[in-house]
């Protein structure tokens, strides 16, 4: 735990990527082979399923710190991170633990799951008393997840590659899926022989960049494949060794959530991997994504919901054919094979339609129609490109439709989390309705740090009322909000809900009375 806590501190003490990679390599060089896979496990953002309820964790920490729960809550709002708040509040410690990471995890952390609350409380208090401040913080992080130390999966892979000499691509592959952080896994992960056994393992997803410049800059339109950009769940459907696996991009094995796709996978030839988008789908068209959320939210999938919200996989790529990795073949070739595969598959696998156009102008026109089709715009993929892992510029572009935008007034503000703690960064905006500002959207992103500081100062100086952490502010600042979709929602005061709202611009040129009205926004839906 000492080494791991030190690693955490080292990662936390620099903002520079290279320094982070160096710190990771140093750690892997010294770490016991039992500890290292756990370190990787946590650093790439995995965590054991909820071991302790946050509320209880907070309650026990407050008790140990000798403060009332409300004061713990105030502290949490200032620090913006539960693990950190607890570490800052616990009584000062003179202890420090020499127990290695894997033993802390296997003997102290994981058993929490099988304990009752009284035992959990005991176990946590004991653990805190054995650790120094940094160890406590890291330990709390192991419980709550969300390391937020500026280390991505890619960075860990880079460090592992640097340390072991195994190619980054191979490591990326090995670190996907459902591996267990064991000694055996660690040896296999660093194995120089790159033929891997695990049948369920997906390939790293190829990700697209948003197109920012003019589309003409991509060159000849004939070198590109255009498809609709669907708003669903990105997934890989894998058929190997007579088994079917469905992986989401978040690397969850989600096969059991989509029984119709599992059945569809059964009809695929042995050794096939498809890349696509899971969509709620009925009568040849997508259902609103909210329907999908209804389905995802269910613990048990009854016949009724399966019937009401059936799904399909809109397949747009094939990564493995007859057990052979075909990612290096050009897209044109893969697309032709994909068409053959889908032709033979069941109705739950749908070929992603090609959007035809002889010129960029044709495609631009098609893109304008997107909204009517419930898609987010177009995807443009270079026909001669291989399937590359991760987000790289050049081969895949998302050409999204322009967002909706309205001018709205800042009415409430609340402190953010993590690096935005202690700053008012979470805002609620209102628009006019019969002479009143009704709250209509919350937004957190889109401002520069400089702007955030200015808004923060405004909030502090113009608070009219406080409700817990929420400040009601003088309605004065106007922002242009962009968002993707509008839906009727009886749960919202304004009667509408918008998707992905964010701040497009601070309209310092506008006064609150210039902001839009609810009627205007309702009107946008009818376009």
């Amino acid at each position: 735990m000492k080494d791991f806590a030190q690693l955490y501190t080292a990662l936390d003490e620099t903002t520079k990527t290279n320094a982070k990679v160096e710190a990771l390599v140093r750690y892997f060089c010294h770490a016991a082979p039992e500890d290292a896979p756990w370190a990787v496990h946590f650093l790439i953002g995995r965590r054991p399923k909820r071991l302790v309820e946050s509320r209880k964790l907070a309650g026990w920490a407050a008790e140990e710190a000798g403060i009332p729960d409300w004061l713990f809550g105030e502290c949490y709002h200032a620090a913006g991170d539960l693990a950190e708040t607890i570490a800052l509040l616990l009584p000062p410690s003179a202890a420090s633990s020499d127990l290695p990471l894997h033993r802390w995890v296997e003997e102290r952390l994981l058993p929490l799951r099988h304990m009752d609350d009284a035992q959990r409380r005991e176990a946590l208090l004991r653990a805190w008393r054995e650790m120094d401040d940094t160890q406590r913080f890291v330990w709390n992080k192991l419980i709550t997840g969300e390391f937020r130390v500026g280390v991505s999966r890619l960075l860990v892979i880079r460090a592992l590659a640097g340390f072991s000499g195994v190619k980054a691509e191979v490591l990326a592959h090995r670190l996907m899926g459902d591996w267990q952080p064991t000694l055996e896994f660690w040896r296999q992960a660093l194995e120089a022989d790159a033929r891997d056994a695990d049948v369920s393992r997906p390939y790293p997803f190829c990700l697209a960049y948003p197109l920012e410049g003019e589309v003409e800059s991509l060159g000849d339109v004939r070198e590109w494949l255009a498809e609709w950009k669907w708003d669903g769940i990105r997934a890989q459907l894998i058929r190997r060794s007579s088994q079917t696996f469905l992986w989401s991009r978040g690397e969850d094995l989600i096969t059991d959530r989509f029984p119709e796709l599992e059945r569809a996978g059964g009809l695929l030839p042995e050794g096939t991997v498809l890349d696509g988008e899971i969509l709620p789908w009925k009568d040849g068209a997508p259902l609103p994504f909210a329907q999908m959320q209804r389905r995802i939210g269910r613990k048990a999938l009854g016949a009724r919901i399966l019937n009401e919200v059936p799904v399909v996989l809109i397949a747009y790529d094939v990564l493995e054919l007859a057990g052979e990795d075909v990612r290096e073949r050009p897209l044109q070739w893969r697309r032709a094979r994909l068409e053959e595969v889908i032709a033979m598959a069941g109705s739950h696998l749908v070929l992603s339609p090609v959007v035809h156009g002889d010129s960029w102008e044709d495609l631009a026109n098609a893109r304008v129609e997107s909204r009517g089709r419930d898609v987010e715009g177009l995807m443009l993929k270079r026909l001669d490109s291989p399937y590359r892992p991760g987000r790289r510029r050049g081969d895949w572009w998302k050409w999204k439709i322009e967002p909706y935008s309205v001018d709205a007034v800042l009415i409430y503000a609340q402190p953010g989390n993590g690096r935005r703690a202690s700053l008012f960064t979470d805002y609620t905006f209102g628009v006019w309705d019969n002479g009143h500002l009704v709250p209509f959207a919350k937004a957190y992103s889109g401002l520069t740090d400089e702007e955030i500081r200015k808004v923060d100062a405004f909030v502090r100086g113009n608070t009219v009322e406080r409700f817990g952490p929420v400040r009601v502010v003088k309605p004065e600042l106007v922002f242009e909000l962009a968002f993707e979709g509008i839906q009727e929602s009886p749960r919202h005061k304004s009667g509408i809900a918008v998707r992905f709202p964010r701040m497009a611009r601070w309209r310092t040129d506008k006064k609150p009375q210039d902001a839009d009205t609810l009627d205007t926004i309702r009107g946008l839906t009818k376009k």
Partner: protein
Amino acid sequence: MAAPLSRYPLYCTRAGEYNLTTVAFFPYTAAAARPSIILNAGKLRGVVLILRQSDNGLFCEAGNFHVDPWEPVDRAVITHAHSDHARWGSKRYLVARDGERVLRQRLSADPDARFAPKIESVEYGQPVFLNGVRVSLHPAGHILGSAQVRIEHRGEVWVVSGDYKLQSDPTCAPFEPLRCHTFVTESTFGLPIYRWPSSENVLASVADWWRANREAGKASLLLTYSLGKAQRLLAGLANRMEGAAIYTHGAVEAPTEIYRQQGVPLANTVHVAAAPPDTVWSTALILAPPSCRGTPWTRRFEPFSSGFASGWMRIRGTRRRLSLDRGFVFSDHADWSGLNEAIEATGAESVWVTHGYRTPLVRWLREKGRDARAVETRFEGEAES
């Protein structure tokens, strides 16, 4: 308003503690300097309001002066020279003697000002009478010349803390606990997550950081508040960084010079502007105000590691938001236990809480059975604490 309180029960309860003879016979109805009275709902006692909140900040009506006024007034009693406490434009200022030069420098440095402020100073503990009200200034331990304002009028004693800390600081006189009836306290770090490590440990880690940077061929750019904190660092680092070249930004250099003139021993420094063009920065420690972060001014030090010495660095999020390499938890304010200890030591029946986390501290004190209330501040003090 005065009528129902003709027997002054409040004063009598304190007779053992203060000499209240004059109070008991105070001709209450005699008009001019009549204190205002408020009744605390549900409590059978009155509180004499020696200070009240005015549009310009805390005002003593009987003495006709403001403490740290926000706008120009006739007479300002100043706790210390930081810009959220000492505002430009008042006719007369009263300040502790140790803080006079710093205040003068600060007030005349104001770019708006063609302003020669009339500043009077007084030794710590030496009383002055303003309109018959006894006022004395006592060390607050915040920066050189920082003071708590003790106001005594007709037996009632109020203390305005200004900003203060209980931690030791070789650059200024230590905080002096004062008994009083009402204590007006700051609460900049009024949450229990704010707990300061010992200054020795922090100074040692600053020195270690500088050493590690020097070995890695990087300059050490340490952001710090230019008045008070920078000098406290220079005093603490003097014998921990033997042979180091320490450079200062102009905003740091000016008060540093005043500290030296007043005999505070500090590490030697060179003004960055006075450094020759071929200066080797990679072995240097540079002290600069936080506003320099990310400005072109810092480019000359590349490559460098950036650090910030502030109580706010206790929270990771704050440091990471500023994209700094290192945060050093080093504050000139009281931490949570410091605030509680200081409040406890005053024996005050009533606590007014200002500057910072007012609401939680007030609630905490009330739950402990103390009479406490939040007092408005115009300046939250985050720019220059």
